[in-house]
């Protein structure tokens, strides 16, 4: 017998299912009486530094249908690129948001501030981005991706630079619709499939 590795295995994932909102966004399901304060209602408080932006979009399945039951979490730094808890971080930026596709239209809205740039482990500056984690019925393990912005210089971003097929880079870039308003559609499968991450 060789030596034993003293490492545990991660717990396997399972789908969040169609009723994920009961647990993570109770007021979305009309069950708001249960907790005094919910998690991830907004990533910013009144008075957060930086440019207020809105990102709208939908999560489409392989047939082009917008999911009505998707739940998304976003995680981002403040306008100077500092994450909550880091020294000098804006106390009015919690950085976490939970938002859901509308049960009728399938459209989501994320209201936040434009994040500042952050260096990666190698010290290379990354273009400003927001991390996303998507769960729903039919998604067996949460999907990770990033939102970049079409009005920023994304040319030297190390993650985008790793995408072999350059047209696929576009799937991670939110498009300006109006000042301070972007559209970011997520395509789970098929034509223009969004780049999903394993990191």
């Amino acid at each position, binding site marked *: 017998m060789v030596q034993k590795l*003293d*490492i*545990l*295995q*991660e*717990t*396997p*994932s*399972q*789908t*969040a299912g169609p*009723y*994920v909102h*009961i*647990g*993570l966004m*109770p007021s979305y399901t009309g*069950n708001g009486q*249960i*907790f005094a304060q919910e*998690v991830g209602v907004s990533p910013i408080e009144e008075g957060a530094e930086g440019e207020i932006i809105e990102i709208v979009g939908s999560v489409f399945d*392989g*047939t082009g249908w917008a*999911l009505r*039951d998707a739940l998304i*979490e976003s*995680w981002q*730094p403040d306008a100077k690129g500092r*994450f*909550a*808890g*880091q*020294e000098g971080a804006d106390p009015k930026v*919690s*950085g976490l948001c939970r938002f859901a596709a509308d049960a009728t239209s399938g459209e989501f809205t994320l209201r936040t501030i434009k994040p500042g740039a*952050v*260096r*990666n*482990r190698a010290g290379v500056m*990354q273009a400003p*981005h927001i*991390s996303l*984690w998507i769960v729903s*019925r*039919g*998604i*067996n*393990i*949460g*999907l990770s991706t*990033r939102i970049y912005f079409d009005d920023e210089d994304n040319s030297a971003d190390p993650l985008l630079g*790793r995408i072999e097929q350059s047209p696929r880079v576009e799937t991670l870039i939110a498009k300006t619709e109006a000042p301070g308003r972007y559209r970011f559609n997520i395509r*789970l*499968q098929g034509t223009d*499939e969004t*780049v*999903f*991450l*394993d*990191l």
Partner: protein
Amino acid sequence: MTDLGPLIPRNRAIHPEPYDPGYKTSVTRSPNLPLLSLESGPSEETGPAFGHGLIGALDNNLILNWTQGAAPAVGERILLHGRVLDENARPVRNTLVEIWQANAGGRYRHKKDSYFAPLDPNFGGCGRTLTDDEGRYEFLTIRPGAYPWPNRGNDWRPMHIHVSVFGHSFGQRLITQVYFEGDPLIAHCPIAATIKSRAQLDRLVAPLDLAHSRPQDYLAYKFDIVLRGRRQSMFENKLEGM
């Protein structure tokens, strides 16, 4: 902040297959193209922290929290408890654990659930808590019932509780389901079967834990959770400011 090192990459072989025709909804909701792999960075290694001020006194008591203590939910009273550890077997302290579930008859308090088993007027079905210094958590709840779902002609979900854990970094984010020891429906469930190894699936099955049950009050089930760990080596440089 000390740099704890990059996250250990996920071993996706232990996780469910994203595309699994037995679970019909996954067919159109699974990416066709490979995921893009990269070493984790600050975006994945940082994460939200939750203060104790967030959690109300009954937040982890699903028997009482829907009525704020006025009347208890109907069903088999159970304590669901366990520890949250990382892959290096270190306790994950002060992290948010959230659960949701159907009532004793298998009915969810959600407008899209039209199963004719009635709602329990004294049961909401969601709870949350923060782990303690040893990474321990506990919930008092009722054991959820099995319920039918429109997948194949006669599919029934085993009794299960959905569990969501944050850890300390966004890259550790995990949602899973807890099943109960001895439930014969586990072997028939297409969602459970998205995990291809029975040994891995069994890691989601909570054993009956008589030692932690309270006589004349509730039974206990134990469910330990492992999140991704961090890779730290004496050879690896520390990042300024991380």
